[in-house]
């Protein structure tokens, strides 16, 4: 595998710093990695001697496990830093935490943090490549990559596809990164949700379509993604009840009919079954939700491999 693009030691803060060709290159690399994950002995020695730190200031078991598995399968050493057990809860600044970790010889950081822009800070303080594992409501580029990979693998190209994302757009970092990546690969994305959960200027910033009505939004969709609806938004005064939300925005057998026949059903997880999506859809043959999870490991392996200059 030739690393003709310059991935080595390059951070991934979001997909906007990566071209369409570079994204495609990552997807192709991920396809190679996926094969490793199907082997009985799921490990290659390519990153032996490299140390990856998963710096999770905000809890996320799934994403952290996915990154840690990815790094382990490439034989990198993995250390994990978590808020609950960490110095940050003792009042240490992110800067000092990074200085401390860096002194231990970390080669790459994966960061999850509730503050937008914190991956850039980790990069600034460490001088090491950083993969953004989700920063507040800002970005979650590896989730977007695995979503894009999952669509690409099924439909072979994103060009001209209509992709509809439904739910709490305002609070979703997944949507923001997906909008950037999917648009780069030529998809037409529509975001849908109640106005109180829709940020302003979406068309202008992302070149997407904004719909407030589910039926209109789903029309002709090749691919439909539901987003986790969080109960806490109710106490923030953004919507009155989960029941009312479900009534208008749930992905169900009835509503999914408005999309194209056999449209792919996706969800970044964790799902609230019965709120934004019904089991009849989540577990249907159209659903690729568990594939997304599997692909996540492969995509993250590809990225670690490319950034840390793994040998094929």
């Amino acid at each position, binding site marked *: 595998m030739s690393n003709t693009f310059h991935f080595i030691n390059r951070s991934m803060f979001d997909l906007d710093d990566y071209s369409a060709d570079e994204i495609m290159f990552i997807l192709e690399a991920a396809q190679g990695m996926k094969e490793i994950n199907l082997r009985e002995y799921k490990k290659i020695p390519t990153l032996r001697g490299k140390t990856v730190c998963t710096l999770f200031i905000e809890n996320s078991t799934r994403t952290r496990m996915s990154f840690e598995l990815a790094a382990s399968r490439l034989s990198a050493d993995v250390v994990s830093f978590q808020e609950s057990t960490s110095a940050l809860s003792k009042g240490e600044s992110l*800067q000092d935490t990074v200085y401390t970790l860096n002194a231990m010889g970390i080669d790459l950081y994966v960061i999850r943090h509730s*503050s*937008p822009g914190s991956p*850039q*800070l980790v990069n600034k303080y460490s001088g090491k490549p950083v993969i953004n594992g989700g920063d507040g409501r*800002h*970005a979650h580029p590896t989730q977007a990559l695995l979503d894009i990979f999952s669509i690409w693998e099924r439909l072979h190209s994103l060009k001209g596809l209509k992709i509809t994302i439904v739910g709490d757009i305002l609070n979703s970092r997944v949507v923001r990164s997906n909008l950037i990546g999917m648009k780069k690969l030529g998809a037409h994305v529509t975001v849908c949700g109640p106005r109180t959960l829709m940020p*302003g200027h979406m068309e*202008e910033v992302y070149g997407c379509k904004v719909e407030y009505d589910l039926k209109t939004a789903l029309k002709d969709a090749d691919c439909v993604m539901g987003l986790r609806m969080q109960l806490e938004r109710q106490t923030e005064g953004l919507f009155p009840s989960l029941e009312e939300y479900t009534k208008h925005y749930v992905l169900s057998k009835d509503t999914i009919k408005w999309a194209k026949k056999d449209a792919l059903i996706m969800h970044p997880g964790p799902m609230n079954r019965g709120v934004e999506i019904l089991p009849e859809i989540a577990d249907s043959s159209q659903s690729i939700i568990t594939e997304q999870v599997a692909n996540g490991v492969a995509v993250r392996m590809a990225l670690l491999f490319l950034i840390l200059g793994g040998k094929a």
Partner: protein
Amino acid sequence: MKTMIKNGIVYQNGKFESLDILFEGHKITQIGKDISIKADETIDAAGKHVLPGLVDIHCHLRDPGFTYKEDIISGTKAAARGGFTTVCAMPNTDPVVDNIATVEFIQRRAKDLGFCKVKVIGAITKQIEGKEISEMASMKEGGIIAISDDGNCVQNGKLMMNCMKYAANFHLPVIIHAEDYNFAGKGQIHSGKAASQLGLSGIPAIAEEVIIARDIMLAESTKARLHVAHVSSARSLELIKQAKDKGLPVSCEVTPHHLLLNEMATITFDTNTKCKPPLRSEKDRLALLEGLKSGLIDCIATDHAPHADYEKELEFDKAPFGINGFEAAFASLYTHLVIPGHLSLERLIEALTSAPAQLFSLNAGVLEEGATADLVIADLHQTITLTADNMLSKAKNTPWIDKELKGKMLSTFCEGRITWQA
């Protein structure tokens, strides 16, 4: 001792003219062409601009209480370097300036140690907590020029009405930091394009506008003199225009950063662009520039808000709000508004000198015989680059750091005494 500044391009009554200025002690004794009196010291200012010492009606010197950010010495040194000879300090110190003792403490320290004159602004409410009226009349006897809870905003309209009534009683102008806390919430930047893109919570312009609307109504009913600090949105200006057209005693200021930058300056998560009110849309910025030109906005004030490096070197939503203003104010405005032709040099200087001085009846901001010898010699052709090493402020939180700007203050005289020399 007599000092003569020869052949400078002198700003007087809104115009520039090649003149000599003679000052003796702390007074300007003569301004004219070819003054022949022999001085003890003569400065050749040919080709240089001689301006009234700049006046800043809105700054935070952080002293007492937060002297790790700035103190009266470092703050006034930075001010002098920026060409300022009079600055007005906001009361959100520790202790808060809500009593005459703290007023006198600051004035005494500034007099003994300062590099420019410091006027004190007292709090509207005790502890700037928005709960009880401060002892503003006593503070006025102590020397405050106005009252403000800057940084905070009195949320309770009924209390604000009483504060304004009380202030009117003692002829104290009321300066408001207009921010409705419910609208502002945990917002970090303007609710606009950048916020949508960065996933940061927004502070909508309406957070400012509703309070301005409220306080204009209160000014009308209480007869208090209202000054709106750091106005940031186009609709705020509409409200202020309505009030002014109606003849209400309302004025406002704008900061250099709101005139020069818009929300997109934040796109790199640079915490040096994080301020309150936030940098708004380009449309708002252009409205502010128009407002300054037309006189709807009365003056420019820096809102100099120093913060320590380690406070700004945090995650964006954890860093404090505020931009360091003194040292870059004139040069940034000159470079990015005057040179490209967006604003006249005359209006810029007026808005930094006589206009703010008049608002609060400060004896400053003009060059004339008999006036205090507060003046600056500037070379508009020379450049400056502020760096972490050469800044005089303790804090370095300016978006202009490491950027070359035109317009260098060569020397600043405050009451005839040299307070800055490049």
